[in-house]
C-alpha cells in the first residue's frame, strides 16, 4: 500500500477512487438508495447483480479483511449489500471504465473466478473460496494481497463497512461500533480524556 504524502493528497486519491466507485447516474443512485432503505426497514435483502455463489465468495473475502470478533465484522455490516449495489450501478453506467490502479469494479467478478481457479488447483477438485476453512481462506488471500483485485476488494470492504448506512453497508452502525464512533451529532465538552482533565 502506498502512503499518501499529505492529507490533501489522500483526499484527492479518494476523489480519484470516486471516478471508479461512484460514476453513478442519478437514477441508479436513487434506485439503490430506495432499495437500501427498504432493506434497512427490515425488509429482506435481495441481491441485485451478484449471483449467490459470487456473493458468498466476495462476502467471505470481506469477512477476512474485517473479521468478526466480539464486535461486528464485514459480514454483520452487510458489506456485501454495498458491494452488490455499487457494482450494479457501475455496470449500468456507460462510458466510465476503470480509472486507477486499484482495478475496475467489474474486475472483481474476473478476480473471484481467478481466485476460485487457485482454490481448484489447490484442492484438486471443484470447490469455491467460500467453502474453504477460515485458515485456508486467509492463506490464499495472503498470496494475492498485492493484486489489483484484492486492493479493490479492500477498498470496497472498508467503504461498505464505514460509509453511512444509507449506502447499504455499515448495517445498524456496525462499522461505527468497531471504531467507537457514536452517531449522535450533538455533543458538549468535555469531549475526551485530556480536555476532561483540564476542566476538572
Amino acid at each position, binding site marked *: *500500500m502506498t*502512503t*499518501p*504524502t*499529505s*492529507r*490533501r*493528497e*489522500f*483526499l*484527492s*486519491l*479518494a*476523489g*480519484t*477512487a*470516486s*471516478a471508479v466507485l*461512484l*460514476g453513478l447516474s442519478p437514477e441508479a*443512485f436513487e434506485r439503490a438508495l430506495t432499495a437500501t432503505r427498504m432493506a434497512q426497514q427490515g425488509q429482506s435483502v435481495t441481491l441485485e447483480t451478484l449471483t449467490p455463489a459470487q456473493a458468498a465468495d466476495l462476502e467471505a473475502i470481506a469477512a*477476512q*479483511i*474485517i*473479521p468478526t*470478533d466480539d*464486535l461486528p465484522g464485514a459480514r454483520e455490516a452487510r458489506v456485501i449489500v454495498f458491494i452488490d449495489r455499487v457494482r450494479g450501478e457501475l455496470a449500468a453506467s456507460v462510458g466510465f471504465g476503470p*480509472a486507477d490502479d486499484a482495478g475496475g469494479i467489474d474486475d472483481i467478478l474476473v478476480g473471484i473466478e481467478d481466485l476460485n481457479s487457485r482454490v481448484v488447483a489447490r484442492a484438486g477438485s471443484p470447490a469455491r473460496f467460500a467453502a474453504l476453512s477460515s485458515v485456508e481462506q486467509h492463506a490464499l*488471500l495472503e498470496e494475492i*494481497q498485492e493484486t489489483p483485485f484484492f486492493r479493490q476488494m*479492500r*477498498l470496497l470492504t*472498508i*467503504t461498505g*463497512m*464505514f*460509509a*453511512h448506512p*444509507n*449506502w447499504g453497508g455499515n448495517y445498524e452502525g456496525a*462499522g*461505527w461500533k*468497531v*471504531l*467507537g*464512533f457514536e*452517531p449522535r*451529532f*450533538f*455533543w*458538549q*465538552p468535555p*469531549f*475526551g*480524556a*485530556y*480536555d*476532561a*482533565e*483540564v476542566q476538572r
Partner: protein
Amino acid sequence: MSPRRFAQGETVDFIIVGSGAAGGVIAKELAESGFTVLVLEQGPYLRAHEFEHDEYKYWFRSALNNGPLESPQKFRPTPRDEWRDQLAIGYHRLVGGGSVMFTSNYWRFKPSDFKERTLLGSIEGTGFDDWPITYEELEPYYTKAEWELGISGEPGAFDPPRSRPYPTPPLPVKSSGVLFERGARALGLTPQAAPMCIISQPYDGRPACQHCGYCSGFGCEHRAKSSTLFTTIPKAEATGRCEIRSGSYVRKIELSASGRATGVLYFDAAKMEHFQPARAVIVCANGGETPRLLLNSKSNQFPDGLANSSGLVGKYLMFNGNHSTTGVFEKPLNDWKSVMVTRMIWDYYDADPGRGFYGGGGIDARFWGYPLLFPLGGLAPDAPTWGQGFKDALRHGYSRTMNADCHTTSLPVAANGVELDPELKDLWGVPAMRVTYRDHDDDLAMMEFLGRIAIEILEAAGAERAWRPEVQPQQFGVHLLGTCRMGNDAGTSVVDRYHRTHDVTNLFLCDGSSFVTSGRGQPTATIQALAFRAADHIARFARRGEI
C-alpha cells in the same frame, strides 16, 4: 422583503459569477448599497436541513464539488512532464461555495505578508512581490468580515494588530488542543486558540456550534458555521435587489466593440444557454475557474483571453503547503467530536533567512479522521492493512489519534498555473482546464522544517507514537491562489488595487486569484476581507459613474 427575481434578459447593475466566500460578500454589500445584483452560481441552493453527515456522498461521490466525470482536468508537475488525466484543483459547487464546506480556519495575514519582497528581496524563477495594498488598509475589512460573518477566537502573541476583538470567544478546547498546547509549551512555543469561522455562542440570529464533528467537507445543519450561505446571502436577498440564480454555469463574458463587458453567456440547469446583460461583471469563481472563464472569453480584442494583456491570467498558481503529522495517545481523545481545530502555533509564521530558504507557516491541532476516511488512510504506515490486526488497530486508534498539520507558504512559481486544454472539454462542451504545478524547493523545505517540529510537539505531548509521511510535491490543491494577481503595473498584474481588471473598465475579479503571495495556509479570511474592501470601492466607483 422577498428575494428579487429578475426577468430573463433584464439588465442588472452587477452580475457576480460565483456565490462563495467572496461573491456572497460582495452581493450583500452592493445590494445594500442600492444596486441590483444577479449572482450566477453553478451549484444548487441548499437549505441547512439538507446537509447530511455522509462522507460517501460528499467525499467520494463529489455530490457538491467538481468531479472528474463532468469536469475533467489534466495535470503535469512541470512543463517537462507529459499531461495526464488527473484532477489537480478541487472546489465546492453550491450557493455559498467553499465557505459552506471548509474547515473554517480563519487566519488573518500579518503586515509582513503584504511586503515580503521589500523585506526579503526577489526570488529567482518566481513572481515573488509586494502587494499593492498594506495590512493597515485591509485591517478594517478583516474586522468587518469577522463581525459581519461571526468568528470565534481570541488574540494570540503573534497576531497582527486588530481594531476590535473577535465577536465570539474561542470554541471549547478539545483533547487534541490540550495535548498540542502541552507539547508546544514543553518546547518553549506559544500555542493559542485557533480563530474559527464557527460561532461559539448564539450570534446574529444563529445558534452556537453543537459540536457534531462534521465541518471539513460538510455543510452545517445548525448554521453555526458562518458561511456566506447563512450570513451575507440572506441579507443580500432581504434587500429586494439581489437574486441568487443557482444551477447557472457561466461559460463566457461578452464584450462590446468598445471593449466593455456587456454580460455573460450561461447554461441553466437544463443546459439551455442564455445571455444575461449587465452594466458590470464581477468574477468570484475561485482561483481555478476565474482564470478559466477569462481564457474561455477570448475575442478578437483579446485573442489570448479576456483581460489578459499581461499574459498573467492563470499564472503563478499557489496551493499553500500542507503536511499532516499524526500521533496516537494512551487515553481516548474522541477527537471526532466538535470542530476540527482548537489550538495552533504561529511561532514560525515569519520567514527567517537564517533557515536558508524562504517560507513560514503555522501548525494546528486537528483530527481529519471521519469514520470512513480514517480506515482508508489514518493508521501508521506499518499497521496491518487487513485482517484481525487491521481491525484491532482501527479499534484502538480511532479515538486515540490526532493530527498536527503544517500549513505553509507557496511561492508564485512562474511555471505553475492554469490554462485551457486544446482538446479536453467538460460535460457542457466548454474547454477544460489543465494545471501545471510543482512546489518550489523552498516550499518543500518549509514543510519539512515544520513537519519535524510538529512531530516534536506530538512527542513532547506524550504520544505513544508519532509519524509523518515523506514531504513530496503536491499534486492537488484546494487553496487556489494567485492566478489573476493584483498590482499597480498593468504589465505585471491582471487587476488593480481595487480588483478592477487593467484591461476592461467594468470587469472586476475578486477571490483567491487576486493574491500576490500565499499567506501561511488559511486564505479565507483574506479573501473575505478583500471582498468587503472591493465592494466598498466598486460601490463608490458606481455611484460616481466611474464604471
